[in-house]
């Protein structure tokens, strides 16, 4: 995968609104055939990033290249190869699904192609109905259908699971993987829920207050979040002893937790002995992906009290 050419390259990207930085020092690449997920809570900068990619906004600093072009200066050319489906899906309420698919794409879809895409998103039965009668999930599907005529090189989906029922979310994941398999298109997904994307994304970029706090695959995220769980004779004393030696030490009522990657068992043992604390038991704890994600965000909140505004 890493050998494939990069369709999207973001370097040191920053975007400021007044004194507030919505994005800062962001680096990211999306290669051909790759599915990358942007994950982060509301306000983390996902939408700003997608708008910059779509050429709706200019970066304050850094560069963005989509297919080698600057989307702000060359939006039309970029849109020939990339498709965006923004959230919430805004469509024309008076037009039918069919009319959207006929009139909005730059190249009119053939009736066959239209039918195929409508079937793909599960809207064949409602093709001639005005969009004002559609549920959020149906609008979401139509928005996706619009982005697939014709099938682009890069598909950018903003919160694609919003409004979909759990079955439809699973179906969407399967469809996206199928689509990638058939066409080798690249997909950039944005979501505020890791669960929505973890099973489909090759790589995840976690955004927090405009910064990329993690970029890698899900295994790397899990690994980074592993800890030693130390059952000790005196939890409070152990915490005091370890937190002065290791970062991100935490405790609960029974044990103290030390980051797995950033600590060595002999050093831990040494520190505890020096403090007169007995180590009764220890083992490695592997959190769920969701827990790892939340932990990462919490750590960022604790360790970086102010990333913005920029001073």
């Amino acid at each position, binding site marked *: 995968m890493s050998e494939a050419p990069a369709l999207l390259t973001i370097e040191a990207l920053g975007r400021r609104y007044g004194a507030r930085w919505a994005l800062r020092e962001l680096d990211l690449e999306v290669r051909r055939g790759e599915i990358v997920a942007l994950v982060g809570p509301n306000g983390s900068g996902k939408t700003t990033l997608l708008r910059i990619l779509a050429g709706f*906004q200019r970066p304050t600093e850094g560069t963005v290249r989509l297919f080698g072009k600057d989307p702000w200066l060359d*939006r*039309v050319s970029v*849109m020939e190869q990339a498709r*965006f489906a923004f959230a919430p899906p805004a469509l024309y309420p008076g*037009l039918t699904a069919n009319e959207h698919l006929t009139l*909005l794409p*730059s190249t*009119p879809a053939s009736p066959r192609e239209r039918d195929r895409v409508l079937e793909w998103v599960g809207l064949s039965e409602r093709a001639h109905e005005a969009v004002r009668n559609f549920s959020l999930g149906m609008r979401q599907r139509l928005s996706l259908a619009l982005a697939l005529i014709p099938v682009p090189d890069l598909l950018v989906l903003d919160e694609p699971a919003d409004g979909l029922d759990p079955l439809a979310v699973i179906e969407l994941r399967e469809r996206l993987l199928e689509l990638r398999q058939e066409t080798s298109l690249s997909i950039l997904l944005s979501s505020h829920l890791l669960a929505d994307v973890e099973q489909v994304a090759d790589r995840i970029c976690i955004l927090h207050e405009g910064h990329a706090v993690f970029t890698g695959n899900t295994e790397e995220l899990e690994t980074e979040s592993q800890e030693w769980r130390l059952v000790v004779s005196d939890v409070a004393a152990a915490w005091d002893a370890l937190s002065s030696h290791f970062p991100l030490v935490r405790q609960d009522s029974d044990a103290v937790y030390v980051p797995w990657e950033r600590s060595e068992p002999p050093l831990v043992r040494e520190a505890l002995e020096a403090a007169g604390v007995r180590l009764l038991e220890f083992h490695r704890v592997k959190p769920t992906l969701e827990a790892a994600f939340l932990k990462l965000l919490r750590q960022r909140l604790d360790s970086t009290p102010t990333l913005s505004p920029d001073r």
Partner: protein
Amino acid sequence: MSLSLEALKLRRSRRPWVVLAALVLYVILMLFGFATYAETETGGNVEFRYTFENESYFNGLTFAVYAFYFAALLLLPVFASTEGGVQIAGERSAGTLPLLLSRPVSRQRVFLSKFAVAGASLAMGVGLFLVLVLGVGLVFVGWGELRLYPGVLQMTDRPQSLSQAEALVRFLWVWPAASLAMLAPLTLSLLISTWSRSAVNAVGLSVSIYLVLSVISEIHFFRELRPFLFTSTLGYWRGLFREDIPWSQIFREASRLLAFSAAFLGVGLWRFRRQEER
């Protein structure tokens, strides 16, 4: 494709029907007012000692001129301002502008398609309205010679008379001329629309500006400002109802209106092409 999309959106929207209903109501009220006025003036209740009006003056063509005159200086520009105001700001407030701009279509094409469809629909509206007032005039009053006097409606500067056939030809000429006049309020509101995030604000501001400018351009104290206001020449088409059409004046004033329209369109497009969408 952009043109078809804009045309279909307009067809499916409620705006044309609201405008049509408003115009029909207006024509009904005008017909009532015209009938009572004619009755007062010709029914033996004439207050003026020196009067020029008589029964032959009040016919369906005069009614059509009266009805069109007030509509073209007040109602139609307001509708034009509304139509222009909802274009960009309406898409922005409905969230559909990203949908339009997520296609490989230039902002220029999006903007000019909107202008073209709004302009064409206004021209159609002006034409339909002329047909409506002439039809109502024919059915309820009956046509005849079109007699016009100075002062009345400020259409002519000397007493004159046009035969029925000639008057109908003049109505035909007035269609494109009045449609062209509507471009100025339309493009002004399109320009305002590029600045606004709310369709209501864009329409409200456009209509307010139109009304303020049209009042200012009629008031004597603002003589020095008049050449710089598009509202000063918005009724230039009235010259087409004169016995001797003042062509040079009509070309001059039409050019001025077109200059305003092109300037509004240019600035609007300039703004739209450089604008960020948040």
